[in-house]
């Protein structure tokens, strides 16, 4: 009797313990080759391929959705690889682009991906009522304006050649590399048979973008546990071959605990540049871990300082150059980033094929800064506001250095911190003097949306004729060699005018446990490349 009771009690305890351990087992301890766990800092707000509001959402979207091609910089040039398209041709006019969709490319519900879906996606993005961040990607297509929207009655440069073949025409000849990156690699295709009947102005609130059950990528959506994790399962019918890793979890992990999770093996991949990195203080420790591969490479993103051009006292370019001289950028890279970063005077990253090596950053020189300010008649009693968004700890710390540097040059500065949405609203409203901001863009050097007069992301509110002229020329030049020369000149004009000060290009740092192979990172993208090729070993 006593034995039975003890055994019963033991059984109950065993069940309880098993119950406690089971959920933990998903992340902890040795994992099979079937599961991979990635970690990022913040939750995604939606999974809309045409309007993710952050890189967090985009990181998740590209497990489920694809564009026509994938792009990757190799040997200082951009190469393209099949994704939804199995073949593509560039017309001799640099204006006509023909794509053939892979014969087996299909939606997760089994329906084939067709040219109709591509047309639907383009019509949706270019509809003036649709909220989207993909407008700039399609702006070169004939019939669309600079924001990628079509005017009433405009004829879209798109022709269906067959169920799986279509042709896109640009308004003017463009550099094929630009077009293939913008339209080919960055426009993810939507399922017409699911969303075709939704009015464009209601698309933003459609439940599909929170529960995207029908995608065309290597992974299918399983669930999103709010603020905890997103779960994907492999698409066995993926046309480029079923992935090796059966299940992928993307967990939301605060920066401070990333290191511990990687150390314990609870995390296989830190999501990477700007969305999931171990803290810079912890980087040396990651490099010392036997079971982890610490990957660091130049990334296409940078941090910069905006000048509010609505302030008359910031319109003199001698003032802006004085600020560039005053800020000790080598110190920020050397000490704050512990050398994990680079300097450049402009928005084209040093790792980009279009980078102009002859343009050097203005050197740190407080005396020169003071002299330039005096020459420009700067009022040394004026106090200006430096607005700083919270969240990125390195950026917040850099603000303290910038302030000290500017004070040393005689400029009185006060720091105002705010959460990112508040900061962004203030900057957009022109309610600031100086502001810190980050940016990451595609490889193509066209930065009109940030630096052209009236551009969507022209947060400095500047209008500089010489910049506009060279930017317009860059978009219109189709010949790659000539285009390179135009952007070389653009970088010279930029360094002379300094619409913004480029503070630093931080390296992308990511940690990958050694059981994961075929996880490819490079300078062309924010994220890793061809996720369907990931291989997870046992630990």
């Amino acid at each position, binding site marked *: 009797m006593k034995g039975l009771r003890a055994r019963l009690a033991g059984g109950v305890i065993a069940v309880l313990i098993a119950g406690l351990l089971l959920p933990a087992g998903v992340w902890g301890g040795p994992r099979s080759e079937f599961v991979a766990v990635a970690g990022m800092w913040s939750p995604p707000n939606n999974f809309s391929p045409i309007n993710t509001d952050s890189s967090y959402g985009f990181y998740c979207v590209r497990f489920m959705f694809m564009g026509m091609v994938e792009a990757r910089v190799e040997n200082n040039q951009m190469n393209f690889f099949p994704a939804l398209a199995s073949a593509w041709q560039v017309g001799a006019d640099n204006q006509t682009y023909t794509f053939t969709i892979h014969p087996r490319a299909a939606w997760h519900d089994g329906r084939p991906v067709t040219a109709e879906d591509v047309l639907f996606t383009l019509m949706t993005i270019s509809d003036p009522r649709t909220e989207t961040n993909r407008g700039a990607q399609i702006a070169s297509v004939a019939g669309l304006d600079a924001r990628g929207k079509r005017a009433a009655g405009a004829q879209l440069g798109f022709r269906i050649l067959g169920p799986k073949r279509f042709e896109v025409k640009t308004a003017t000849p463009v550099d094929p590399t630009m077009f293939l990156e913008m339209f080919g690699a960055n426009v993810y295709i939507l399922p017409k048979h699911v969303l075709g009947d939704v009015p464009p102005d209601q698309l933003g609130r459609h439940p599909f973008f929170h529960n995207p059950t029908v995608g065309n990528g290597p992974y299918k959506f399983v669930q999103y546990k709010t603020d905890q994790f997103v779960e994907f399962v492999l698409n066995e019918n993926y046309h480029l071959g079923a992935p090796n890793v059966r299940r992928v979890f993307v967990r939301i992990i605060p*920066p401070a605990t990333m*290191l511990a999770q990687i150390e314990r093996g609870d995390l296989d991949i830190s999501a990477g540049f700007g969305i999931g990195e171990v*803290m810079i203080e912890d980087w040396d*420790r990651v490099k010392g871990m036997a079971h982890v591969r610490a990957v660091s490479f130049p990334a296409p993103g940078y941090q910069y300082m905006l000048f509010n051009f609505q302030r008359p006292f910031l319109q003199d370019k001698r003032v802006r150059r004085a600020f560039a001289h005053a800020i000790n950028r080598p110190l920020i890279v050397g000490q704050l980033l512990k050398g994990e970063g680079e300097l450049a005077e402009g928005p084209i990253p040093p790792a980009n094929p279009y980078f102009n090596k002859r343009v050097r950053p203005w050197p740190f020189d407080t005396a020169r800064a003071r002299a330039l300010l005096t020459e420009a008649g700067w009022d040394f009693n004026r106090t200006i506001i430096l607005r700083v968004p919270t969240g990125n*700890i390195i950026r917040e*710390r850099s603000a*303290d250095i910038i302030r*000290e540097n500017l004070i040393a040059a005689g400029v009185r500065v006060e*720091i105002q*911190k705010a959460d990112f949405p508040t900061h962004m609203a203030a900057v957009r409203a022109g309610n600031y003097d100086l502001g810190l901001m980050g940016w990451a863009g595609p490889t193509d050097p066209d930065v009109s949306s940030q630096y052209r007069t009236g551009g969507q992301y022209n947060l400095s509110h500047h209008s500089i004729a010489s910049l506009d002229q060279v930017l317009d020329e860059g978009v219109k030049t189709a010949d790659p060699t000539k285009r390179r020369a135009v952007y070389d000149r653009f970088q010279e004009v930029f360094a002379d005018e300094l619409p913004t000060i480029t503070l630093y290009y931080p390296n992308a740092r990511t940690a990958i446990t050694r059981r994961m192979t075929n996880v490819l990172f490079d300078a062309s993208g924010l994220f890793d490349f061809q996720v369907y090729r990931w291989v997870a070993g046992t630990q």
Partner: protein
Amino acid sequence: MTEWTPSRTGSFWSLALRRFMRHRLAVVGTIALGMLATMALAAPLLAPHSPTAIDAAVFQGRPSTTHLLGTDSVGRDVLSRLIYAARVSLSVGILAVTMYVLIGTSVGAIAGYYGGAVDLALSRLIDIMLSFPPLIIILFAVSVFGRPSLWNVIIVLGLLGWPAVARLVRGQVLALRQQEFVLAARAIGASDRAVVVRHLLPNAMAPVLVAATFGTANAILVEAALSFLGMGVQPPTPSWGNMLTDAQSLTVLEQMPWLWVPPGFMILVSVLTINFVGDGLRDALDPSLKL
């Protein structure tokens, strides 16, 4: 008879002082608090460096002869920041508490003295104020007030802290207003204001003083928490709370104790000493404790 009656052993306050001096921890606390206050006042004389000056050579540097407590994540001297931060913590503690004691005492005295509908309305207001979760309200208020700053923290703490004091004063006044000396004062035609200010409040002050002392310790803690969350004192102004924000990585926690032990220790010491003083005051001023 009232507590004011002179006796052989001296006045109420000299009796209290004697009781206080017998409380050893309270005496130690008072001395330590005095030292903290001196440190805050004499910060420019004591600090070896400017609290915002950046030493380009050493970021997160170990303690050395140039930087006795090392440097922080942007190369500033930790010791100097620690010393200057005492100003922030003490001014938040003292100013916020002064502010809410003034508000709380007025509201409590009015409620207790007039009673009736006035009391009912004010008491419900106190109940409502006390039912808000304080930190959430403070976070909300600081962000609504515009940008976070030292003054905003002080104002918000000052505007939100009064209900507890008000309730205390109301209770005291309610108990005292029926006593003979109050009736006597009224009988000779003293105005309401004179009765409250000259007769009631001095007799109600002892528990308020104790509450204010503990409140100061609490205000220092809340300021540290707010600054740690980035909603309090803004860098480069040092505060013990925002100095702790440096310690958010495992490597810092394990290998760079100079970044977080000193500010943590200072918060501990200041709060502990103020609480010791509060304990001493409570024991000394409690009329029910006879020696």
